[in-house]
């Protein structure tokens, strides 16, 4: 489904507890910072290749289709759908001790990238193919990642 990209500002949730992201946040190369900096303002941006015009995942410094390093960062053009999901019954990281069992969603944006994110709808079993809503998940040190909520949920 087409959305108006310019109107899209994501809502924010805080990662539960008082955790800093410093032992779980990804390494962000300087030429990939745009995606993460934009999340702090509620924008979900993906790199769109200036040469082949494909939209790629936010990590990586070049287009995996044509090798171009020229790209512009564009809002997601389609709402994500659940591509797959898992439910962790064991916490491997202390940040998730109080959250098990918790679900992680692999969300597919159109024909573009697949992003992982925590599922925020407690008690609702994810269903593959369902349209969902990206949300910004903020950590105490300001790092922001993507989580996913039900399409019509309030927050």
């Amino acid at each position, binding site marked *: 489904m087409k959305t108006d990209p310019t109107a899209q500002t994501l809502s924010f949730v805080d990662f539960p507890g008082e955790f800093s*992201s410093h*032992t*779980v*946040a*990804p*390494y962000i*190369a300087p030429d*990939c910072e745009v995606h993460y900096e934009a999340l702090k303002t509620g924008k979900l941006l993906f790199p769109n290749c200036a040469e082949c015009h*494909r*939209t*790629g*995942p936010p*990590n*990586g*410094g070049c287009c*995996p289709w044509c090798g171009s390093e020229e790209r512009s960062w564009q809002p997601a053009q389609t709402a994500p759908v659940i*591509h*797959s*999901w*898992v*439910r*962790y*019954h*064991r916490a*491997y*990281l*202390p940040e*998730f001790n109080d*959250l098990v*069992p*918790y679900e*992680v969603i*692999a969300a*597919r944006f159109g*024909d*573009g*990238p*697949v*992003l*992982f*994110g*925590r599922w925020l709808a407690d008690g609702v079993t994810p269903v*593959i*193919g369902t349209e969902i809503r990206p949300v910004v*998940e903020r*950590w105490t040190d300001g*790092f922001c*990642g*993507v*989580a996913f909520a039900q399409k019509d949920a309030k927050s």
Partner: protein
Amino acid sequence: MKDVAIAGIGTIGFGKSPDLSASAMANRAFKAALGDCGLAREDVDGLVCHIGSPRGLDYDEIAALLGLDLRYASQTWAHGRFCGTVLQTAAMAIANGLAETVACVGVFRNTAFSRPGTKGFPGFDENFREGGGPHAETPHTGMIAPIGGAAMSFQRYLYEHDKTAEGLAAVALSQRAHASLNPLAYKQDPLSEDDYAAAPYICEPLRRLDCSVPVDTGVVVLLTSLKRAEKLAQPPVRLSAFQGLSGGPNEFVFGRPGLGIHQRDRFAGTSLGADEPVFAKSNLGPGDIDTLHCYDGFAPQVIWTLERFGFAPVGQALDWIQGGRIGPGGELPVNTSGGHLSEGHSNGWGQTVEIVRQLRGTAGARQVPNCRNALWATTFGDAILYEN
């Protein structure tokens, strides 16, 4: 590579040895391999090792601590997926005259460390690679530990083929039935369907019994020219064809190609099945394989290997494996040592020595009758065809 063969094998077994150094484990396995075939330490002039320190042993340490004078050495990255690559590298070194006899060393300490996915596990920093963790780990989302990627792939696989997870039990049960016939296996106690159904989920849809069992182990496999192997104590086991490990945007180490799991944007998976190069090079097909051995960090990898290499139709392997087909006495015995799920997680080395036993006819109660062709193959695309 018909002119290269496995001459000798040695292993310390599969269990918990947290107090044993990696060099002691390597030494014991190395001596056992030399003793197996009658080669001397001085005969070994090449080395390819799998995982380095701290869980394994780097090539230069092995050479120094075991007193090897080498003219060829190589080593792979700290992941289990390279067993086939190690053996293929050794075979190519021999075929090209870089070495005459190569020791392939798989030494793994696991029980001394905290489990994979936790912050105390060696190599935790790999979760923060530019392209994501080696098994699709993305820690800040909670996607962590190798099982996450395997579970994510399996859930997608079930959806694409309209299957339920119950059929997967046959993998764990079949391999345990094999392991109960293997005195070296870490888990030998019989498993029932009720045991499987009662096993807790670790990362749904995968249960604990769908996961490999971490062990400490050391294995050494000695490769040399067929000509030389024929003069040694054991009948040679030839590496008659092989194909390399696959990579690319469609590939994910814990999934069928094209499942689109690792934050990838390509979904066009193809399984070549009987057209995989390993078959084309040997004029054999899946139906000619007497026993299949595959990488089984998680049970779905057996499913995907069966489909990738054409043993079962794509999307049908969960049905295909029912009725004892891959268990002892089945049409295609798979991982007859018990594999990683029951013998213990040896990163493919337990399977490799088991292939050699099967082709020598020394696999005891689990011997596959008239075993002539054994295949090593993986979800991630590498394969070695062995013949006696």
